[in-house]
């Protein structure tokens, strides 16, 4: 097991005394190993890849492709060419919506869940204009996916199943291996949004058995603007390209073009080489800690916070998501008092906020005064907020450099705030 205080020393930004960083579901800080890898590429090897017949370009190409191999291995891919570099999870899902969408017909169905991030809803909604129908699997009372409901919504028109591995609001961990096996049995293309999973737990895409798996580098210590779309070789092969341009072609005439093989078929234009190099260094860092240990660390922090919740009984504090930490990532969405969504009709004229409630923005601003960074808002999951009957929540989310002392500081600040405003 690792010591989060030791880990923290590797992160230059966290030496700032005025920062307790608890917005890791949004993005993570970078260790010096990642920063140095990017600097080394810029200072010593920078050039374009897959083009020049000169030493520098060969070095850059080698670094880019070695990064691909390393990251592919990290997410359990047998074959590095099954990993396409993209900007982030959002781009991967848009690529899939675009390319798979061309195969769909009016009346076909896409099955999602009620806990999805906007990035796993909006790209699919683009397909509604051609008559494609989107359905949503329900959640249980405790905030877990209702697998029976999901299975009951599979029918012969279902063509795509796209689910998050871990919810960015509730932290719920979904049984994606089981879900993908249902999909396979029914001839449905399966997609997993792993933005909140790959950074926080061991992920083996081959074992999960999905057709496609998407993740973002910046949420796992890597630079922003780099992420991965992993897929089964044959599934990637069958996809039409998303963007056209240099790098992704084999031959071009004025009339038509032929395309490069996967993965370059999906990597039009000069790629984010420094991003890939940085993400590869991030993967090395995480591998050294051990992803099982990372998961255990976050489970311990979640258990600690839920215990404190019970012990401290902070007035009007309520949190969302499963209480069983074995089914939950390190995400803690909460409110002080009720935060119902606005309706012109049901708001009484003599009450602004429900008694004792503090708006999540005000909670976040008060925490910020104490140096604690948390998120507040709808967390890019407005439909889920609506389902929970909420306008917004505040959210603390944890990572390898957060220790119990951070959680203690956070909870005692909440206690103070709940008594204040």
């Amino acid at each position, binding site marked *: 097991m690792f010591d989060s205080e030791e880990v923290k020393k590797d992160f230059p930004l966290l030496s700032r005394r005025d920062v307790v960083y608890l917005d890791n579901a949004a993005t993570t800080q970078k260790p010096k190993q990642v920063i140095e890898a990017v600097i080394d590429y810029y200072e010593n090897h920078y050039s374009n890849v897959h083009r020049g017949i000169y030493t520098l370009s060969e070095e850059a190409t080698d670094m880019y492709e070695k990064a691909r191999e390393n990251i592919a291995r990290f997410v359990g891919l047998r074959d590095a060419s099954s990993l396409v570099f993209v900007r982030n999870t959002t781009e991967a899902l848009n690529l899939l919506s675009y390319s798979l969408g061309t195969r769909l017909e009016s009346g076909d169905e896409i099955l999602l869940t009620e806990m999805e991030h906007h990035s796993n809803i909006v790209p699919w909604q683009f397909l509604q204009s051609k008559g494609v129908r989107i359905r949503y699997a329900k959640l249980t009372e405790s905030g877990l996916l209702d697998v029976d409901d999901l299975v009951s919504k599979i029918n012969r028109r279902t063509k795509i199943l796209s689910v998050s591995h871990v919810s960015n609001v509730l932290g719920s961990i979904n049984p994606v291996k089981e879900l993908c096996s249902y999909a396979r049995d029914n001839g449905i293309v399966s997609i997993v949004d792993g933005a909140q999973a790959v950074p926080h737990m061991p992920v083996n895409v081959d074992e999960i058995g999905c057709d496609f798996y998407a993740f973002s580098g910046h949420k796992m210590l890597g630079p922003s603007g780099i992420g991965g779309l992993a897929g089964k070789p044959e599934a990637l092969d069958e996809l039409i390209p998303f963007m056209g341009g240099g790098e992704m072609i084999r031959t071009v005439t004025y009339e038509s073009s032929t395309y490069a093989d996967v993965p370059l078929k999906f990597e039009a234009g000069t790629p984010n080489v420094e991003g890939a190099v940085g993400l590869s260094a991030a993967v090395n860092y995480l591998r050294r800690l051990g992803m099982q240990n990372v998961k255990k660390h976050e489970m311990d922090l979640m258990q600690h916070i839920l215990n404190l919740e019970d012990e401290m009984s902070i007035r009007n504090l309520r949190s969302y998501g499963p209480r069983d930490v074995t089914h939950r990532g390190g995400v803690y969405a909460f409110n002080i008092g009720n*935060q*119902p*969504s*606005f309706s*012109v009709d049901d*708001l009484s*004229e*003599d009450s*602004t*906020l429900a008694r004792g409630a503090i*708006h*999540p*923005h*005000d909670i976040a*601003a008060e925490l*910020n*005064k104490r140096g604690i960074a948390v998120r*507040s*808002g*709808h967390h890019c999951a*407005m439909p889920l*907020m609506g389902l929970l009957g909420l*306008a*917004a929540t505040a959210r603390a989310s944890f990572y390898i450099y957060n220790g119990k002392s951070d959680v203690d500081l956070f909870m005692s600040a909440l206690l103070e705030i709940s008594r204040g*405003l």
Partner: protein
Amino acid sequence: MNVGNEGFEEMILDHYRNPRNYGRIEHPTSAITEYNPVCGDALHFTVNIRNSRIEDIKFIGRGCSVSMAAASILTERVKGMEIHEVEQIREEVFLKSLGIYLGPVREKCALLSLNALKKIAGGKRDES
């Protein structure tokens, strides 16, 4: 409210806890609901405009201290104003008059009410 002048901060909290002109006008000449997409906050204004002048204004809403207080403060300020005067209120001047540093994200909370009223003022002018 990050860096704040104590007096101004008190003013914001006072308006948040006891919003002025809170409620709804029956049969208003104009009404608008404005949402902040960042956080789902919402403000609903009902306004009576006679001879291009704001005779009465009330609001209800759900929001953070900044958006609610700014709405309350604004209703006090614009009551009796000509609508063209409302249109001329400059964002940076209104923000400055609140007296607290907000930062780019929370400035949107503070400007929610002003945006709503400018829409009403613009719409009204088009009709006349």
